[in-house]
């Protein structure tokens, strides 16, 4: 299914086209010079589940969809390739593909970031050190999300692939590389590149030198021949060859969360954004130095503009936020639509003493306790479903506070304000609660599509469409701001209760089960 819409008034161009190759769909959005959306086109692709825990995408389908949505958005905008100054790319991170450079055919479906088939391999690669074996070089723990171990799995499991790879016939890439290689001609001279943000999610790149780490490559068992060239996030990688945008420069690539950081114009150290969807991803700009995390966060590249030095970020994710509201709707039946959680929660003044820790598959950052399971605690006869609804929203806010605290501990930088985006920002009570718990203003920008906007911004910078990041900041518009209203004593008391509730989740799963 393809859907598209155009908004009414916009400038007359020129424009930037941003491609968002996401986990469930591919989209193309055309932006004007003010950063306003001119047109959108989107198409979903199939989620392939060959076994429990395995998730794959058909990369050929994805490339076809990308071409279709780009054409769709350009046609809907009523413009031609001459009006488009650059193409920017943002993508689902870590999803891994190997393809034959002579035929352009994928050798296997792409292994999606959620795919856990490399769990055992990651344990094995940790050897006696454990999951932090490569953390100093890469900023990441050895976990199944990241691309490196997925490449190794493919080399081990697709017959004859290692030999073909060593002969130099096989190319590896995350989805940014796949899209750029195809856009720039594929087998007919396509450029094989990736950007620093995507490379920083492979477990293969040295964060300090921005180069593939030869020691890690040999430890994991990946031949250097398959690797793309690491480039900055904003530079012209090549020109589109063929298709509706023939000749237009392909000028940016950023992983989706980094693109949102860029789209939210978090260009100064200490600025942070949080994207509230099914789960939540919070990134904080830490400036020119990669900050090691001792509190369970990831160290990653935020972005790099051309030949300027790279900017680093700390990242914390919350597994269950929007999905907890969905759970209340679908599994508990306490609400009929996601938006109703606010209606129910607003019918009471507070949580009535109830706390809900949704550790459905363990506790993630900053605890990393797979033995934890969800609890609702503090229950008395007084508690109603409305109090539980309130506890549901508070759970998202407290988890954000915990990530924010961890970021402050690691970086020494206090959060001054939090920029938010994603579907849950329409929940006014949640946003107010967030400001109350963080004791910092929470700000929503006027363009909700910050991911695509970030890719467009980076591409526009690369071709001089926008002169500098100050011009991008000038485009940023505040749509709403929530300021803290909770007194310090209440906040401290409530936080203490939340932390007590978190303690109650731990140790539920016995060793054998986890």
């Amino acid at each position, binding site marked *: 299914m393809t859907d598209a819409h155009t*908004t*009414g*008034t916009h400038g007359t161009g020129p424009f930037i086209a941003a491609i968002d190759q996401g986990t469930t769909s591919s989209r193309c959005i055309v932006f004007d010079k*003010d950063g*306003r*959306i001119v047109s959108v086109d989107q198409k979903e692709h199939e989620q392939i589940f060959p076994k429990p825990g395995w998730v794959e995408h058909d990369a050929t389908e994805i490339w076809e969809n990308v071409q279709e949505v780009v054409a769709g958005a350009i046609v809907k905008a009523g413009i031609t390739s001459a009006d488009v100054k650059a193409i920017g790319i943002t993508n689902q991170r870590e999803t891994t593909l190997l393809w034959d450079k002579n035929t352009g055919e994928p050798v296997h479906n792409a292994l999606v970031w959620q795919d856990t088939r490399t769990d055992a391999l990651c344990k094995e690669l940790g050897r006696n050190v454990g999951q932090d074996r490569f953390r100093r070089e890469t900023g990441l723990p050895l976990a199944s999300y990241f691309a490196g171990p997925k490449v190794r799995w493919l080399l081990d499991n697709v017959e004859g692939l290692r030999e073909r790879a060593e002969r130099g016939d096989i190319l590896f890439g995350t989805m940014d590389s796949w899209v750029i290689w195809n856009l720039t001609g594929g087998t007919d001279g396509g450029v094989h590149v990736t950007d620093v943000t995507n490379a920083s999610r492979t477990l293969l790149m040295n964060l300090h030198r921005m180069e593939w780490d030869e020691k890690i490559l040999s430890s994991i068992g990946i031949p250097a021949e398959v690797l793309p060239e690491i480039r900055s996030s904003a530079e012209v990688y090549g020109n589109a060859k063929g298709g509706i945008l023939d000749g237009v420069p392909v000028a940016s690539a950023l992983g989706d969360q980094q693109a949102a950081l860029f789209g939210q114009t978090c260009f100064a150290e200490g600025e942070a954004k949080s994207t509230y969807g099914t789960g939540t991803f919070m990134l904080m700009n830490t400036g020119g130095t990669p900050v090691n995390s001792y509190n369970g966060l990831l160290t990653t590249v935020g972005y790099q503009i051309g030949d300027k030095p790279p900017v680093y970020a700390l990242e914390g994710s919350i597994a269950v936020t929007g999905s907890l509201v969905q759970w209340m709707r679908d599994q508990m039946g306490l609400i*009929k*639509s*996601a*938006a*109703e*959680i*606010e*209606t129910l929660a607003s019918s009471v003044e507070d949580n009535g003493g109830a706390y809900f820790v949704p550790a459905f598959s363990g506790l993630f950052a900053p605890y990393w306790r797979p033995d934890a399971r969800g609890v609702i605690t503090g229950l008395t006869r007084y508690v109603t479903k409305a109090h539980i609804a309130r506890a549901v929203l508070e759970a998202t806010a407290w988890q954000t506070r915990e990530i924010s605290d961890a970021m402050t501990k690691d970086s020494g930088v206090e959060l001054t304000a939090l920029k938010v985006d994603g*579907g849950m*920002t*329409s*929940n*006014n009570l949640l946003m107010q609660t967030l400001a109350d718990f963080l004791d910092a203003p929470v700000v929503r920008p*006027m*363009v*909700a599509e910050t991911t695509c906007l970030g890719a467009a911004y980076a591409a526009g910078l690369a071709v001089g469409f926008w002169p500098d990041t100050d011009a991008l900041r000038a485009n940023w*518009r*505040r*749509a*709403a*701001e*929530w300021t803290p209203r909770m007194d310090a004593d209440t906040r401290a008391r409530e936080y203490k209760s939340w932390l007590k509730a978190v303690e109650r989740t731990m140790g539920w799963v016995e060793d054998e089960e986890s």
Partner: protein
Amino acid sequence: MAKNIQSLERAAAMLRLLAGGERRLGLSDIASSLGLAKGTAHGILRTLQLEGFVEQDAASGRYQLGAELLRLGNSYLDVHELRARALVWTDDLARSSGESVHLGVLHQHGVLIVHHVFRPDDSRQVLEVGAMQPLHSTALGKVLSAYDPVAHSEVMEAERRSFTGRTVTEADAFESMLDLIRAQGWAADAEETWEGVAAVAAPVHDRRRMPVGAVAVTGAVERVAPGGTLRPELIAAVRDCARAVSRDLGAGRF
């Protein structure tokens, strides 16, 4: 108040009876509970059954509440749902108009602001979600009064205070203003509530064309109505936004 309609009162009593306690009741139970002759009770039940408000169990012949009633009960629009659907469109309206945008619904004889988008000029502004505005003088309130019968009866019965020299308070003048609003499809507030502030609003309808709220652009009178005339492109933008939200509500994702 005019004389009440007896059969409607009896029908309402039947529905209440079926809604409480035992879910299924026979004809004689219903008739005797309400002190009606069986024939009278049966006539009313049959009418309710035709409308789908009551269903008769084929096996036992007993009556219970019908699906239509449940559908009606479930179909009120949650204001937070309304906000979620309006988010994208109201952002766009604020951007294109350069003014602040409010979304309001009827609540306790006034307009409750359920969504507010800041004026996109980076100035300090305070979120007004949860605030109340008067029905008779604001653009949002006038749109609701013109389109929602409940708002209309409330505004006509209430005292219409004069906030500025321009507030329309007299009943006949107010009614003819509402006629004009219905004819043109939008309402204005030119310094009728606050000195120096003007607004334009248009109605948001749900899939059954019920007026569920209103969307307004509000700003300094010099910008919104320079020289005393409302900017026509502003009126068009507000109406486009209201139509887009209405269309989204009609699509019905759930």
